C-alpha cells in the first residue's frame, strides 16, 4: 500500500495528480485534509488546479473541432482506389483521371508526413520490386497494343496513374515510417506488443496485387490493368459500365500476428 502523503513535501509532490483526482482514494482524502488546513499547500494546489484548467479549457475549445467537410472518407477512399486496394467507381480517364493526376503531382507546403501526395508511398510498399517491374513491362506492352504507337509515354511517365502501378518502389522509400525504422512508427513506452507494423514486402516475384485486396472476379492483373486503362467511363474493354464498380474485395491469406 502506498504511503499516504502527510507532510507538506509529500503533499506538494502529490498535487499534480491530486488536482486531476488521479490518486488512490485514501491518498486523495489525505491530501484534501492537509490542503484544507495548510495555506501554503492550498496556494500551490490552486496554481496546479489553474494550470490543469487551462488544459481542460483547450479541450473544450477543441471539443467541437472536426475535420473539414466532407470528412476524411472521400480522401481515404480515393487513396485506396488509386492504390488498387479498393474498387472505385471514379473514372480513370478524362476529367476524373486529370483530377487524380493533379492530386498526384500537387505539392502542399508544410506537409512533412509524406511526399507530394499523402499516402502515395504506402501502396508502393505492397509491390515487390520484381512484381512492379513485371507490371511496368506489361503496361508498356498494353500501351503499345492499345495506342498503336511505338514508345508510348503512357506507362512510367512521372505523375501518371499508370506510373502508380508500374513504377518500382523507390529505394528507401519509407517516408511514412518513423524513426523506429522500417516496419512502423516510433513507439513510446516499453513492451509495445500490439504495435501496428507495415506488412513485410514479399521477396519472391509475384503478380501485382497478389495478396493485396483486389476486386473478386478480376484475378488476372492484366484484366485489371486493361480495365483501368480503357474507356472514359472507366469501364472494361467491352464498354460495360465500370467493371470494378460494386466489386467486393478479397483478402489475401490472413496472418494472425498476436
Amino acid at each position: 500500500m502506498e504511503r499516504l502523503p502527510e507532510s507538506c513535501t509529500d503533499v506538494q509532490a502529490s498535487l499534480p495528480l491530486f488536482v486531476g483526482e488521479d490518486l488512490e482514494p485514501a491518498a486523495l482524502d489525505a491530501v484534501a485534509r492537509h490542503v484544507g488546513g495548510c495555506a501554503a499547500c492550498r496556494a500551490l494546489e490552486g496554481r496546479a488546479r489553474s494550470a490543469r484548467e487551462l488544459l481542460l479549457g483547450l479541450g473544450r475549445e477543441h471539443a467541437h473541432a472536426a475535420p473539414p467537410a466532407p470528412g476524411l472518407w472521400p480522401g481515404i477512399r480515393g487513396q485506396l482506389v488509386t492504390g488498387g486496394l479498393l474498387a472505385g467507381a471514379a473514372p480513370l480517364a478524362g476529367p476524373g483521371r486529370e483530377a487524380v493526376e493533379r492530386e498526384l503531382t500537387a505539392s502542399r507546403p508544410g506537409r512533412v508526413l509524406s511526399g507530394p501526395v499523402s499516402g502515395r508511398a504506402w501502396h508502393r510498399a505492397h509491390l515487390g520490386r520484381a512484381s512492379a517491374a513485371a507490371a511496368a513491362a506489361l503496361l508498356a506492352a498494353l500501351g503499345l497494343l492499345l495506342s498503336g504507337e511505338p514508345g508510348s509515354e503512357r506507362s512510367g511517365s512521372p505523375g501518371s496513374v499508370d506510373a502508380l502501378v508500374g513504377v518500382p518502389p523507390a529505394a528507401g522509400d519509407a517516408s511514412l515510417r518513423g524513426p523506429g525504422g522500417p516496419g512502423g512508427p516510433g513507439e513510446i513506452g516499453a513492451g509495445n506488443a500490439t504495435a501496428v507494423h507495415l506488412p513485410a514486402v514479399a521477396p519472391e516475384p509475384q503478380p501485382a496485387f497478389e495478396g493485396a485486396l483486389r476486386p473478386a472476379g478480376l484475378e488476372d492483373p492484366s484484366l485489371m490493368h486493361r480495365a483501368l486503362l480503357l474507356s472514359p467511363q472507366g469501364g472494361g474493354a467491352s464498354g460495360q459500365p465500370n467493371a470494378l464498380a460494386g466489386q467486393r474485395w478479397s483478402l489475401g491469406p490472413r496472418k494472425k500476428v498476436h
Partner: protein
Amino acid sequence: MSERRSESNGPFGAQGREPDADAALPPEEPAEPGAGPDHELVRRAQAGEERAFETLVRRHERRAWRVARNMVPSDEDAQDLTQEAFLRVFRSLDRFDFQHEFTTWLYRIVTNLAIDHLRKRRPSFSTTASTQGEESEIDLADPRDGRPSDAIESLETAAKVQECLSALAPHFQSVLVLRELEGLACTEIAEIVGATHVTVRWRLHRGRKLFQEEWERRKRLAEGGPGEEPVGAETANTEGDSP
C-alpha cells in the same frame, strides 16, 4: 507491459470516461442504424464490405482527428495524420486483435503518428512555415469577424496553451492530450501508448508539473518579469525523463 481490457470496458463504457470529460466533450457521432458495434464492423470489413469500413471511418474520424489536432499544430497535418492512420488500419484489418477495442488501436496509431511527426519537427510548433516562403501563420483558427471579445480572448488563450503544450516532450504531450483533452482514463491511455499504468501516471504527473512551470514561466516573461530558463531536459522534445 500493456494491460488487456475486456471488450465491455471500452473507452465509451462506464469505466472509460471521466465525469467531467462527459460534460466537456460532445457526444460521439451517432452510429448508423443497424451498423453494429465496432468489432462487428471490423469483421464485416475483413470480409470485404466497403460500407463497414466506411462506417468505421465516419464513426471515429472526428475524435481521431481531434486527438491528432491536439498534438500537431495545423489542421492540415492533423488531417494527413488521421487519414494515414485509417489507411494503416485498413491495411492491417486482417491482423486486428479482437481482445482490444477498435478505438484503442486507432488512437494508438494516431498517437504514434503524431509523436513521429513531432519528433521530426523543431521544438516550436506554434506556427507553420511554408516551403515556398509564404508568410507564417498561427495554426489555430483566427478570430472571426463579429465574435465577442471574450471569445477572441478564449481563442488567444487556447493558442497560448497549445504552444505551451507543444513545448513538452512528445511522450508527455500525448498523455496530457489523451487525459485532459480527451478525458480518457489512465488504464485506457496505458493501452494506447503501450506503457504500464504506473508509467502513464508518472508521465501525467510530470507532464502536468512541466506544463504548469512552462505556463508560469511564459506568463512571467510576457509580464516583463525575469525570464528563467525553460525547465531542464523535460521540455523541447527531450526524452530523458522516461522511467
